[in-house]
């Protein structure tokens, strides 16, 4: 095989890789763009009478990490006081 033929084969192989890569990248960029840009709402979507209600963010799933049920800054201490508030069922 001449040096010229070998070079042509290499060039053809590179061309195939470039073409395949371009197709793959086009798909990737299309998917990214579809997710990143606002949707073009169809008329059908607009006519939905009552969209699902917004549910407010109520905090994380992990109870241990949620500040909602956090311990006090200082724990209770034993006391021998003779008067004060009463905490009981109500």
């Amino acid at each position, binding site marked *: 095989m001449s040096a010229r033929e070998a070079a042509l084969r290499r060039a053809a192989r590179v061309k195939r890789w470039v073409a395949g890569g371009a197709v793959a990248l086009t798909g990737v960029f299309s998917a990214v763009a579809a997710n990143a840009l606002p949707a073009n709402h169809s008329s059908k979507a607009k006519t939905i009478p009552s969209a699902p209600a917004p549910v407010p963010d109520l905090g994380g799933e992990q109870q241990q990490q949620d500040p*909602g049920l956090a311990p006090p800054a200082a724990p209770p201490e034993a*006391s021998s006081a003779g008067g004060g508030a009463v905490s009981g069922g109500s």
Partner: protein
Amino acid sequence: MSASARWRAIGTTAELFVTDAAELPGARRILERELAAIDLACSRFRDDSEIARVNASPGCWVEVSDLFLEAALTGLRAAKLTKGSVDPTVGRALRVAGYDRDFAELPALRTGRVKFAPAPGWRLVQIDPARGAVRVPRGVELDLGATAKALAADRAALACSRSLRGGVLVNLGGDLAVGGPAPAGGWAVRVTDDHESGFDAPGQTISISSGGLATSSVTVRRWRRGSDELHHIVDPASGRPAESFWRTVSVAAANCVAANVASTAAIVRGGPALFWLNSLRLPARLVGVDGRVARVSDWPAEALT
């Protein structure tokens, strides 16, 4: 010099302690204003309340006040944090079980068969904070009673600490919130079965200097219907009064709402509540139906006298 005041409000006892006696009238005005507002927003027993309007309008968006919105979000958050052990959709369960009016007006014995209705579930409640609106589907009735009372205590304590000198302790039917600096040695609190008891009732005396403290008990707000004896802490999963494993649970937390939610959830969860409270590092005292006492996290041992 410290001072205190005590009066009846929202179907329970309201009590105030201040470190500066001169601030007591101002603190009382703040608390009375807060109680009037929370009652108008969240009382199931008033036809003119916002919660009555929401419950009477299933399927419709109802515009509500900022306070009701905060109370509703607090109730939903409680449900999420407890995985449904505390659920604001127990309104119908309480109503059909017979708790359909202010407890003071409830006859000790009611006739007729008792019915139980599981809570439909907090996820069905829709809230649109931007519009200030709430919607519940047909069959869902809200009850924000416990968390709303604790929220009122937290709000009043915060408002007092912002506008008055010294410290304040707000006590709404045994749900306590600390605002501002506590007195030397902290605020003395007796934890016991019934908040109406005297300071010498069986229990334990502790002191707190921040956050909130709440006690839930199955020994209070009990009534009979037919042959069934009922109490007010409902297990949302069954709609029945929670099985009595713990008689009384007291919890200290970063605020009164958290303490209230944790103590109520502990009653509903029964035995496993011990490990749950410990995992959350919440100091708690749990009294079993047999009177045995368990303490978790940093809850102190009895003081030696």
